[in-house]
């Protein structure tokens, strides 16, 4: 799943570790979500949306043909 996490993080000048601490997950997990290797659970996606004050659709984008 594509996402805009890296851009949103850069806008706020947060490191992966900063974001991980705010979400209560490991830096490894933030990195895996960012690189698209892991799709977060719904609760984690919602806390991401809350953290960036955006809707989930503004952060994640389903790849064509998979939904």
């Amino acid at each position, binding site marked *: 799943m594509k996402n805009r996490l890296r851009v949103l993080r850069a806008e*706020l*000048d*947060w490191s992966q570790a*900063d974001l991980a*601490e705010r979400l*209560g*997950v*490991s830096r*490894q*997990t933030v*990195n*895996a*979500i960012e690189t698209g*290797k*892991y799709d*977060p*659970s719904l609760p*984690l996606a919602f806390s991401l949306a809350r953290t960036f004050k955006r809707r989930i659709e503004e952060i994640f984008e389903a790849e064509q043909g998979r939904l």
Partner: protein
Amino acid sequence: MTPLPNKSRRSLQWNRCIPIPHRPFMRTESNLPPQVSEMPGPPLLPVQSTWITYRAQIEIGLALLAYMMFLVGSVTILRANPDASWRYIVAVVPVAPASLVLFLFARRLARLDELQRRIQIEAFGFSLAATALITFAYGFLEGAGLPHLNWTYILPLMAALWAVGAAIFTFRYR
């Protein structure tokens, strides 16, 4: 006291009822995380940062060490006193540090986040399947004439394969 003009009273109420984070003359900067260089207090010693990062691993390692020491002590005492009436109690004593290992291990698993949990499940699955494969294969080899091995080798084999699996799946999500 003169009553306030209608317009400004409304704006006062507006200000009171709806908190707007970015209204003028209020705090507008974002909640940036504190810079590490500006953190008060002396910098962390290497030993302190190691404890913060690897606390669970260190705790489980120390508990395992305690278990092994209790086990060696218990076996040594039992060998020296094979007919004592208290031998069952001494034989059961290592269960206490083993329960500590179990408790710390379960706590560590409960504190993992969702990706780390997935990695552990995949590693356990890998370990289970690989152990089954290896023990079955060796079982048939035993039937063909290889020497019989002790059953206690199975758990270390499983643990080693679990570590290998955890390394593989951690690398996959990097």
